[in-house]
């Protein structure tokens, strides 16, 4: 028997190169989003604490009494919270790069599902970090020392007991900031802080509204939820008067995800002149129009106006300034792994079957308001009167008001649920006693007349035209 030939080769290594792995992990996420990932961890901590200490108050204000403080300057970044800390039993999940499949399911309502957020954020910011955490049973400190990234053999972080933390929570301090990050926190500080504040105020509007206090460099962030015009109608049922209300849809899927959708107007529709002027002069620095998608109280998409949310597809027109008054919110609640969000938690999973089904309803609702806008765009002044009776309500307030509305089942639609379809006013033909006058004049001439009549050259041209007519009518009488 021939001697067995010895294998001259050995197993080849497929272990990741640490710097490459970390670089890949951090390159595709924006700095602002990485910081929001850290805020997500605070929220997840609250939900874990809520599960262990349920109380009636926590049902209405689930985040009350909790806070998160973000601070940054040229040399360091920190986020401190009182959101329950990281139990030692979760350290494998909290500090490993990626989620261990053997880990038990999360508390209902958390947004983290992939186990990369905190680590990705740390390495996006810098190369050295200390995390102190305390909960009912554990108090420890995890240190990512300077130089850890260069050591290819070391994939662990040292952990030590700590007594520094006075409350249950976590404090994360990142030092040795990357030069670009340090510049964002110092050279561009005013712009960056303003942008981050706006993102927290919009993406965490629900959570802050429900009690979480967030501050950035000592300044409290106030929530900025999308508000829809809602006419509380008492006359409507009796007189069948058509009024401005949002389209609403709600359902619960077989695997327990609750969906609530509302789309409507946030402001009066713009006149044709306003739309035309916007093409030549940028009047607003941003447009709070479009769809916001909320997963477990956290906005994963804010004011989207693309095909992702149904604009420009299946009969819905592409977004245009004309539709600046239309906004919608879709809320998904349930097990994080069942929600239609992506790994970055900053986007919706466009291929999710649940999202695709809900998107049909988003388009159905949106069509009512694009149709209204098209019908009334030449008579925006009259349309403004419809809006006057409305009050701006947050999604939570709309839900409360919806208790008085008559929903109809949508058994033929997928997913089955129920919806409220508002009857919006439709333009009537002019009363035979009236005649419409419209004419076109140069911008300079309109401004001259506006300044002459109102001392304000930027008056709405339709008001200038009407005032001219009224002045002559007075003289003629």
């Amino acid at each position, binding site marked *: 028997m021939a001697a067995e030939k010895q294998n001259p080769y050995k197993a080849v290594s497929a272990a990741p190169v640490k710097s490459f792995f970390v670089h890949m992990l951090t390159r595709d996420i924006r700095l602002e989003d990485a910081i929001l990932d850290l805020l997500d961890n605070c929220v997840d901590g609250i939900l874990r604490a809520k599960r262990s200490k349920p109380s009636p108050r926590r049902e209405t204000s689930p985040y009350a009494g909790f806070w998160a403080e973000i601070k940054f300057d040229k040399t360091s970044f920190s986020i401190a919270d009182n959101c329950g800390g990281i139990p030692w039993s979760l350290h494998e999940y909290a500090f490993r790069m990626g989620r261990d499949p053997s880990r038990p399911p999360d508390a209902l309502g958390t947004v983290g599902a992939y186990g990369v957020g905190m680590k990705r954020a740390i390495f996006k910011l810098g190369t050295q970090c200390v995390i102190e955490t305390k909960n009912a049973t554990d108090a420890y400190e995890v240190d990512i020392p300077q130089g850890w990234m260069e050591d290819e053999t070391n994939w662990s972080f040292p952990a030590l007991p700590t007594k520094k933390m006075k409350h249950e929570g976590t404090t994360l301090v990142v030092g040795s900031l990357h030069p670009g990050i340090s510049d964002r926190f110092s050279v561009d500080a*005013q*712009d960056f802080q*303003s942008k981050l*504040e706006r993102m927290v105020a919009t993406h965490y509007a629900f959570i802050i509204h429900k009690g979480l206090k967030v501050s950035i460099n000592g*300044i409290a962030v*106030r929530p900025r939820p999308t508000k829809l015009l809602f006419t509380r109608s008492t006359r409507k049922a009796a007189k069948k008067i058509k009024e401005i209300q949002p389209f609403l849809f709600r359902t619960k899927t077989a695997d327990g995800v609750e969906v609530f959708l509302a789309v409507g107007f946030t402001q009066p529709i713009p006149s044709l002149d306003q739309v035309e002027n916007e093409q030549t*002069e*940028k009047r607003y*620095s941003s447009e709070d129009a479009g769809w916001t998608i909320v997963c477990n109280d956290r906005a994963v998409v804010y004011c989207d106006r693309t095909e992702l949310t149904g604009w420009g597809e299946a009969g819905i027109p592409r977004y245009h300034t004309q539709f600046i008054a239309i906004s919608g919110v879709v809320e998904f609640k349930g097990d994080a792994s069942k929600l239609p969000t992506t790994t970055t938690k900053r986007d919706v999973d466009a291929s999710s079957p649940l999202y695709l089904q809900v998107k049909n309803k988003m388009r159905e609702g949106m069509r009512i308001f694009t149709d209204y806008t098209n019908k009334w765009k030449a008579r925006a002044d009259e349309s403004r009167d419809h809006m006057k009776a409305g009050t701006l309500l947050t999604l939570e307030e709309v839900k409360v008001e919806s208790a008085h509305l008559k929903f109809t089942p949508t058994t033929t639609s997928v997913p089955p649920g129920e919806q409220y379809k508002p009857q919006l006013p439709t333009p009537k033909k002019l009363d035979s006693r009236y005649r419409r006058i419209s004419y076109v004049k140069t911008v300079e001439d309109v401004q001259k007349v506006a300044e002459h009549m109102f001392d304000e050259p930027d008056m709405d041209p339709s008001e200038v035209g009407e005032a001219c007519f009224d002045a002559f009518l007075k003289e003629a009488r």
Partner: protein
Amino acid sequence: MKAPPYHLRPNKAVDRLTLIDAIKLVVAQTELGEYTYYGMGGPYLEDFRLMYELYPHMRMVCIEKDENVCKRQLFHLPCRSHRLRLEKMPLSSFLAKYEAKDEKSIFWLDYTKLRFSYLDEFMDLLGKVGANSLIKITLRCNPPDYQDTQPAEQTKKLERFKRTFETVLPTAFSALPVKLEDFALLIQNMVRIASQKALPSATPTMFLPIASFYYSDSSGIFTLTGIVCLRKEMSRFRELFKRWQFANLDWVAPKEINVPSLSTKERLHLQRHLPRRKNAGRRLLRSLGYLIDRDEATTEIQLQQYADFHRYFPYFIKAIP
């Protein structure tokens, strides 16, 4: 459009001369030929007249969209048109075709209102001009524009302001300031954020502020001058302006221009005591021996203003045309 006469705008005249001072500090005489001055001129082309008197070799371009004002500008040309080009178009159209090609520019965006589109044009310009270019932006800064006695209307005005300027508003903005100096600081912070957006830290050039003022000839005005420079050259420019009395290199609160009404005789009398490093207001009051405003404290402030700006204070005197 009716333009207020110059003798009723002494503060603006002072502000204009501080720009001339800033140019002197940045641009060496030998470099003047490399610069082009772009302005919005107004019917009398006053800034162009000044530029031509002081810097006759500098090329100049005036941008104006109003046909009638353009005709009036042609009438007021301070020099032959090969030196001063009139561009009849809106500033946005001009910026769309403007190419710096590394040429150095001095731009005065002299707006009379406060609109987001103006900050948008400012951001556009910062990204286009060559290094070592000077940019001056002037904006309306008039708190009464946003005040209303009706609380509901006041709230609407605040919401409209927030919606209009959202992306350039500083952190914690919650109310519109009532005082002119506070409103000026708010606008300065908005300009600062706009400049950081246009030239973020990752770009090789930056916008360094040089001076900022607020004043009111009839309505409130804010104005800020800065230089677009290479980040690595920032300290050189800081050094140039360090001793300039109006320097604002760190975005601190803008300085007020509020020159007092004084007769020529009074001014010639006061000028003998100037310049003074300290307590100029008190010293000038003592020399004058009477109040020029309601009380001693206000008079001292007024005379301090005169001391600060006396070199820039125009004389409006009767002349034979």
